[in-house]
C-alpha cells in the first residue's frame, strides 16, 4: 500500500501545481489582452466617472501585484466575487447552473458507452469485414461532424419536422435527449475506435487462446477475458472525456440553450462580464484537472503495474 500512497501523493502535487498555474493564467487573462479591460466592458463612450467606479469595484485601479494577491485570496477563501452586471454572487450562479451540466454529462456518457462498446467489439471481432468498415466509418464521421452542426440537424429533424423533442431549453420531457445524443455520438466515435484497437491487441494474447481452448463461449471470452483487460485505456479516455463533458460542452449547450456552465461562459463573454468568465473558466479547468487526477488514481488502483512503474 506504500507505493499506492506515494503514487497518490505524486498525483496530488501535480494537480495542485496545475491548478496554481491555471489560477495565474486566468488572472492574467484580462491583463494580457491589449487595451483597458474597463473600457472594453463599458464601451469607448462611457463616462470617466463610470469607468473609475467600475475599475474601483473590480479592484483594477490597484497595483497588479495587489490585484493578484486579492484574486488568489478570493480563490482560497472561495469568495469569488460577484457578476458586475447583475451583482449576483458568482458562486451562486455556478451552483445554479451545475445540475444541468452534470445531467447532460452523465446522459451523454451513457449514450456514448451504449453505442461505443458494441460498435468497437463488433469492429474488432469482425476485423476487415464490411461490419468493421461500417463501424469505423461511423466513427470517422462522428469525429468529423462538428457538434454545433450535428445539433442543428437533430433539431431540424427531430424537433421541428417530427416534433418529438423540444427545440431547446431545459424544461419539458425529453429536452435532454437531443443535446445528449449530440455529445454522446461524438464521444462514441472516439471511444469505439479506442475499444476496437485495444480489443484487437488483447485478442491476440495467450490467455484468450486458452479461454477459447477450454471451451468458453464467444460471449464469455469477450466479456470476461478480453473486455476486462482491454478496458484500462478505455477508462482513462472516459475519464478525460467526462472531464470535458463536466467542464461544460460549451458549444453544444449554446446550440440547445441548455442552461449549464458552458452556456453561462458564452453568455458572460457576450455581456463582457469578465469576472464571471474568469471564475467559470477557473472552476471548469480545476474540475477537469481533478477528474483527470482521479482517473489516474482509479487506473492505478485497478492495474497495479501502473503504480509500480511510476510510483
Amino acid at each position, binding site marked *: 500500500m506504500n507505493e499506492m500512497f506515494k503514487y497518490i501523493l505524486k498525483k496530488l502535487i501535480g494537480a495542485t501545481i496545475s491548478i496554481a498555474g491555471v489560477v495565474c493564467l486566468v488572472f492574467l487573462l484580462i491583463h494580457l*489582452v491589449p487595451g483597458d*479591460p474597463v473600457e472594453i466592458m463599458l464601451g469607448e463612450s462611457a463616462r470617466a466617472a463610470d469607468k473609475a467606479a467600475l475599475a474601483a469595484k473590480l479592484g483594477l485601479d490597484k497595483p497588479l501585484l495587489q490585484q493578484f494577491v486579492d484574486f488568489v485570496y478570493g480563490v482560497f477563501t472561495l469568495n469569488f466575487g460577484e457578476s458586475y452586471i447583475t451583482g449576483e454572487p458568482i458562486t451562486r450562479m455556478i451552483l445554479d447552473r451545475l445540475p444541468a451540466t452534470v445531467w447532460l454529462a452523465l446522459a451523454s456518457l451513457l449514450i456514448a458507452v451504449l453505442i461505443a462498446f458494441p460498435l468497437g467489439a463488433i469492429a474488432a471481432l469482425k476485423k476487415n469485414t464490411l461490419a468493421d468498415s461500417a463501424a469505423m466509418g461511423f466513427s470517422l464521421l462522428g469525429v468529423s461532424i*462538428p457538434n454545433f452542426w450535428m445539433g442543428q440537424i437533430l433539431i431540424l429533424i427531430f424537433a421541428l419536422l417530427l416534433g418529438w423533442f423540444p427545440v431547446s431549453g431545459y424544461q419539458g420531457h425529453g429536452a435532454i435527449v437531443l443535446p445528449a445524443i449530440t455529445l454522446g455520438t461524438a464521444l462514441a466515435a472516439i471511444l469505439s475506435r479506442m475499444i476496437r484497437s485495444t480489443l484487437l491487441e488483447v485478442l491476440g494474447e495467450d490467455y484468450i487462446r486458452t479461454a477459447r481452448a477450454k471451451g468458453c463461449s464467444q460471449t464469455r471470452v469477450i466479456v470476461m477475458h478480453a473486455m476486462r483487460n482491454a478496458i484500462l485505456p478505455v477508462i482513462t479516455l472516459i475519464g478525460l472525456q467526462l*472531464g470535458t463533458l463536466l467542464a461544460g460542452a460549451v*458549444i453544444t449547450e449554446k446550440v440547445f440553450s441548455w442552461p449549464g456552465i458552458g452556456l453561462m*461562459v458564452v453568455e458572460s463573454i*457576450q455581456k463582457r462580464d469578465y469576472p464571471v468568465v474568469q471564475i467559470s*473558466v477557473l472552476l471548469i*479547468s480545476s474540475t477537469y484537472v481533478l477528474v483527470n487526477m482521479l482517473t489516474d488514481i482509479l487506473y492505478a488502483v485497478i492495474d497495479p503495474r501502473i503504480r509500480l512503474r511510476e510510483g
Partner: protein
Amino acid sequence: MLRKYFPITIVVLWLLMIVAGLIFPFNPNQIDLTHILATPGWDSLFGNDDLGRSILDRTITGGFTSFIVAAFVTVISVVVGTFVGCISGYIGGWVDGLIVRVIDIFLAFPGILLAIALSGVMGPGIENVIIALSIVGWVGYARLSRAQVLSIKNREHVLAAHALGTGHFEIIKTHILPLIMAPLIVEGTFGIAGIVIAEAGLSYLGLGVQPPASSWGSMIRDGSQYLLVAPHMVIAPGIMLMLVVLSVNLIGDQIRDHLDVKDVNKRK
C-alpha cells in the same frame, strides 16, 4: 479508389476556393432583397440567405476564411511547439521541468475552452481567432516533439555528432529534427482538421470573423434562426465543413500509414 482519391479531391476543392476567390468576381456580401431565403435552384445553386446573399458565394469565401485560419494556426503552432519541445527535450534538467509544467498547465484547460475565453476577452476578428487558437495549439506539438527528442537524443549518431564537436543547434537541425518530422507531420495533418472545426465553432459563437465576412461557422449560426423555413442555410456550409474535416482526417490516416507512424497519442 474512392477511398484514396475522394479526400484529395475535397481538399483540392477547398484550395480552389482560395484561388477562385481571387479570380472570379464573387459577391458574398451582395444583398438582394428579392431573393431573401430563396431555395436552391438553377440561378443560385445553394440558394440565398436571410439577406438574399448567395450562399454559394458565401460558402466559397467561408472556405477561404477557414483555410487562412487553419494555415496560420498550424504553421505557428508547429513552429513554436517544435522549437519549445526540442529545446525542452534536448537541454533537459530544470529547463525541461519548467517547460513540462507550463505544458501541463495549458493542457489543464479542457477542449477549446481556453480559445473561447481568449477570443472572448480579445474580441472577435480573424486575427484574434488565429492568436487564440495558436496559444492553445502549440502545446500538443511541444509535448510530442519533446517526447520524440527524449527518445532519440541518446542514439549513437547523436552521440557521435557530439563527439565530433558539432554545435548543439546543428545537432538539433540535422541529426534530430529530420527523425522526428514524421509524427509531427501526422499530428499536424489531424491538427488542421481540429482547427477547421475550432474556427467554425468560435465563429458559431460569434467570436470569429466579423460580419459581413463569412465563415462556415457564422453561416450556420445565421441559418439556425431560419431552420424551418430555410434549412439550406445551415446544410450547405455544414456539409462543406464536414467534407473538409472528413477528408483532412482521411488524408491524415493515409499519411500515418504511409510514414508508418504508430498511434501518435500513445507516445506520451
